[in-house]
């Protein structure tokens, strides 16, 4: 009997190798079908009408002239007269028409009157927020006052990061189509299985009548778990019109309402002994993520400083609501902590790397991982050769600096079910209702199945992205890879065992003496006694084997550590920060595909450079409007802005044997902190908040007289 445990390093033919993603060619040549590309016969186009005010009461809605516009087929009112709208962009109604343009014209023809109400859209301090500030209970551990008395050096600092958006390149949206009472939705979602229930509940229809299909995903980052107001509205429009409707958010709508990452701000005190031993921490933090944002902030991050006190105030504002943003809260907590600690290291005159290594003991469960990663990172960055005390003293306006940060994440696999079928003709299928967000999920599933059967990758057909397949959890919390790899491994192993049982008699052995390798079934260790895969399957006659498997906790684990180092150059006359290099060292247990894993880390670093240097949702208090719901002033890094990225995955003994752990989120946590620290190291002064714009860099420099 084949064992479902992961094969040992020497026995792996595909797992842990560098394999190109299966959908690379169709994506890069434009042949991949995203929700945006779905075409259906008789398709109508939906368009949302959004609130132009940050806070108002709807006085009246008149859709009559819109209904008379050419091409209009349906109107769906989401929020009625009398109701309040709480942010610019809150959905009021939707229309569907024959063409995208007609829908847009009709949306503009709707007449809505509002009574404006007072708003707050700025990211203000709690003291200026009045009753919009909601305080959480203070957390105290040890004796902070005593800790500060023990310290030889203390720093006080102010740190923060603005509200940013998800800015998915494929905006949110879906195509909805009814056939009688059955609804099919092609959705750009991270939650194929979960959306079934959401549509069923939202539309009051049986879950069995709902089918969700997600062929390809153009980015979600935590913002695409819901059917959303527009999804349900799209289905209602489709029902009304009796025709399929496509409703994708426009770019401005995407930036206004489809997700925001809460801001964070904090005043921090931290203290350490002369040798770098951390003794005390105290922080008052606040932030906003819209009207209500859940989730709390735990400071300090990772470092279990023995004496610590922290508080958090949530400020509610009239901006589009927060959604989970890749590693929710972690980038914020990491920034506040790592920036303050790096300031403290500088105050002590210590190299931040030595300071962090000195405190490895209080880094919790992954302490030894961090130590190894810090040393590896230092080697790749040539840290010791390049590092200098704060303020690059070389001549000329371009100052170089190094910074580092570390992060942690869970990443345990979600619930996942897989069906695996071996056909008599030798072909193999695996089916599960998971989704590939662009992370390489499809490829990982194929690798696990092919490895299990000893077949080449292209012998396996992977069916995902359809709620008709066995249920899988949402792709959130970096839980997909653990879920799908273990359910696939279990299903494939069970299927294989059935096949081995069929084949064993013809080879005159017990099934337990057989293995599947190199496209053959053979007696373990003896390739002379074997049968080719195809011939083995032919023994099935006309009945395929199907077996199912579930997520299996003994194949996966949770809890990773990673470190990142940034090297920047800063033009101290213009304040422009240029990325030179990022080094990212990451563990995630057993790596199934080194190439797609590295590419996850690359993507995270790019996203990190972008939020460190450019991204900010700019709100205007006077008008309540967002000033940059576009890709012109909501700035994203381009290829020339990113610099070199070097990724190292921790693998081998001590890592592989933990099983598979998720990776999507952890590497996006550290870049902001590492880059902020690198800028401080380059110019000799902390730029308190992200993004690190020329304006803020110059202001920080001016405070210390303009020189690095």
């Amino acid at each position, binding site marked *: 009997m084949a064992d479902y445990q992961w094969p040992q390093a020497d026995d792996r033919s595909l797992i842990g190798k560098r394999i190109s993603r299966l959908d690379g060619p169709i994506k890069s040549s434009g042949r991949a079908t995203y929700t945006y590309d779905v075409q259906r016969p008789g398709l109508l186009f939906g368009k949302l009408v959004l609130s132009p005010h940050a806070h108002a009461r709807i006085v009246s809605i008149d859709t009559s002239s819109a209904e008379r516009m050419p091409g209009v087929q349906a109107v769906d009112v989401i929020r009625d007269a009398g109701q309040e709208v709480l942010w610019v962009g809150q959905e009021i109604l939707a229309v569907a028409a024959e063409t995208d343009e007609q829908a847009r014209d009709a949306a503009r023809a709707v007449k809505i009157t509002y009574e404006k109400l007072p708003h707050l859209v700025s990211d203000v301090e709690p003291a200026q927020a009045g009753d919009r500030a909601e305080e959480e209970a203070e957390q105290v551990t040890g004796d902070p006052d005593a800790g500060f008395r023990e310290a030889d050096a203390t720093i006080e600092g102010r740190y923060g990061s603005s509200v940013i958006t998800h800015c998915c390149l494929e905006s949110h949206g879906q195509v909805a189509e009814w056939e009688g009472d059955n609804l099919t939705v092609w959705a750009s979602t991270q939650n194929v299985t979960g959306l079934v229930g959401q549509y069923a509940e939202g539309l009051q229809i049986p879950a069995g009548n709902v089918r969700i299909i997600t062929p390809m995903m153009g980015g979600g980052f935590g913002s695409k778990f819901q059917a959303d107001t527009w999804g349900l509205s799209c289905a209602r429009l489709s029902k009304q019109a009796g025709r399929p409707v496509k409703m994708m958010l426009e770019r401005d709508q995407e930036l206004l309402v489809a997700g925001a990452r809460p801001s964070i701000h904090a005043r921090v005190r931290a203290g350490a002994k002369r040798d770098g031993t951390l003794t005390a921490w105290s922080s008052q933090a606040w932030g906003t993520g819209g009207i209500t944002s859940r989730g709390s902030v735990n400071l300090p991050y990772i470092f279990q400083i023995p004496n610590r006190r922290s508080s958090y105030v949530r400020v509610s504002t009239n901006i589009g609501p927060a959604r989970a943003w890749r590693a929710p809260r972690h980038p914020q907590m990491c920034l506040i902590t790592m920036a303050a600690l790096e300031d403290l290291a500088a105050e002590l005159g210590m190299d931040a790397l030595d300071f962090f290594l000195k405190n490895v003991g209080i880094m919790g469960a992954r302490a030894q991982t961090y130590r190894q990663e810090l040393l590896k990172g230092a080697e790749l960055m040539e840290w010791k050769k390049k590092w200098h005390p704060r303020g690059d003293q070389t001549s000329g306006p371009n100052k170089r600096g190094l910074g580092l940060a570390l992060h942690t994440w869970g990443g345990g696999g979600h619930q996942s079910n897989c069906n695996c079928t071996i056909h008599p003709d030798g072909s193999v299928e695996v089916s599960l209702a998971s989704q590939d967000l662009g992370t390489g999920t499809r490829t990982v599933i194929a690798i696990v199945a092919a490895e299990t059967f000893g077949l080449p990758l292209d012998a396996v057909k992977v069916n995902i992205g359809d709620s008709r397949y066995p249920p899988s959890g949402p792709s959130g919390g970096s839980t997909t890879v653990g879920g799908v790899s273990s359910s696939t491994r279990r299903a494939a192993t069970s299927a294989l065992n059935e096949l081995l049982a069929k084949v064993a008699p013809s080879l005159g052995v017990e099934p337990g003496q057989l293995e599947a390798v190199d496209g053959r079934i053979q007696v373990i260790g003896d390739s002379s006694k074997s049968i080719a895969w195809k011939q083995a399957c032919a023994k099935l006659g006309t009945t395929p084997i199907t077996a199912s498997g579930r997520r299996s906790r003994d194949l996966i684990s949770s809890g990773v550590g990673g470190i990142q180092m940034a090297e920047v150059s800063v033009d101290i006359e213009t304040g422009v920060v240029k990325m030179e290099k990022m080094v990212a060292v990451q563990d995630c247990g057993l790596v199934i595909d080194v190439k797609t894993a590295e590419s996850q880390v690359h993507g995270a670093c790019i996203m990190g450079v972008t939020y460190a240097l*450019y991204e900010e949702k700019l709100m205007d208090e006077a008008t309540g409007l967002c000033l940059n719901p576009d890709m012109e*002033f909501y700035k994203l890094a381009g290829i*020339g802005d990113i610099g070199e990225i070097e990724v190292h995955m921790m693998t081998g003994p001590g890592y592989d044997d933990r099983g598979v752990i998720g990776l999507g989120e952890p590497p996006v946590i550290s870049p902001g902190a590492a880059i902020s620290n690198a800028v401080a190291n380059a110019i000799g002064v902390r730029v308190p908040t992200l993004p690190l714009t020329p304006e803020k860099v110059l202001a920080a420099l001016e405070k210390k007289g303009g020189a690095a």
Partner: protein
Amino acid sequence: MERFAYANPSTLKEAVGLLSSRWGETAILAGGTDLLSLMKNYVAAPKRLVSIKNIAELRGINSDTDGIRIGALTTLQELLDDESIRRDFPALAHAAEGVASMQLRNMGTVGGDLCQRPRCWYFRSGFGLLAQDEQGRSLVTEGDNRYHAILGNRGPAYFVHPSSLAPALIALDARVSIFGPKGENSMLLKDFFQTPQSANERETVLQTDEIVTRITIPSFLRGWPNATYEIRPKEALDWPLATASVLLQLEGDAVAHAHVVLGHVAPIPWNAESASQWLVGQRINEQTAAKAGMEAVRDARPLSGNGYKVKLASVAVKRALLAAVQGGA
């Protein structure tokens, strides 16, 4: 966008005949990279678009003893690909190069770059060029003005002129030719731009039924050091925070004549006259270039949130001057 009629004339005369004498009714369409986005955002809603793309005489770069004539339909990429412009007028080539992406350079034209509308986010959100609320208060001075004017900003206009070619061309003493109902005339490009004093005025003196036909740079400037320096936070698909274009005539090492023009700091391309004058007689080095930079922003009056641009503008001048004497940027 709103519905519109589309006209595709092949002569200037025809085109002018199709243009209305009232703002907003008709619009000239060149590459469309700006006009179409204004229309999609309903900031512009002309009833008729008059494409000038079929008017042959608006194309091409030609030179004779008088000048280098750049047709209004010359794309930014054609400008950049022109060897003599790259060699003799790096100030202009560099400004064209700064307009990234490739798509913008391939579609955007010289005429369109000069006539494009400001990027002020209040203007683009539909509050009008002067960006005022119902009570006539400036949304800019009260609001987020990080990218707005630091010079020439006594009001009511606070936007910055978006063209990066204009400062370079003005530094190069270019003339602009205009064709209208009364035929063709020309003027110095610096006189083409104006700061609107009321909602009825625009950023240029161009009338609704006039077409920019070409730009002419005087031939005798060939060989005069010139350069542009742009301060950009990122490499592509972004706007400069400040630019400076300079032209120098040197006698030996000393400056005999200088022309310093700033971009993206005022509602018009900003002639930094006192800096130009101060430079006469100087030798360009770190110190004098820095001093000229300070001189150029002496009259700057930043708004609540754009003080940093004063420093940027002065650094841009310094670096443009140093680049000019080191052989272009």
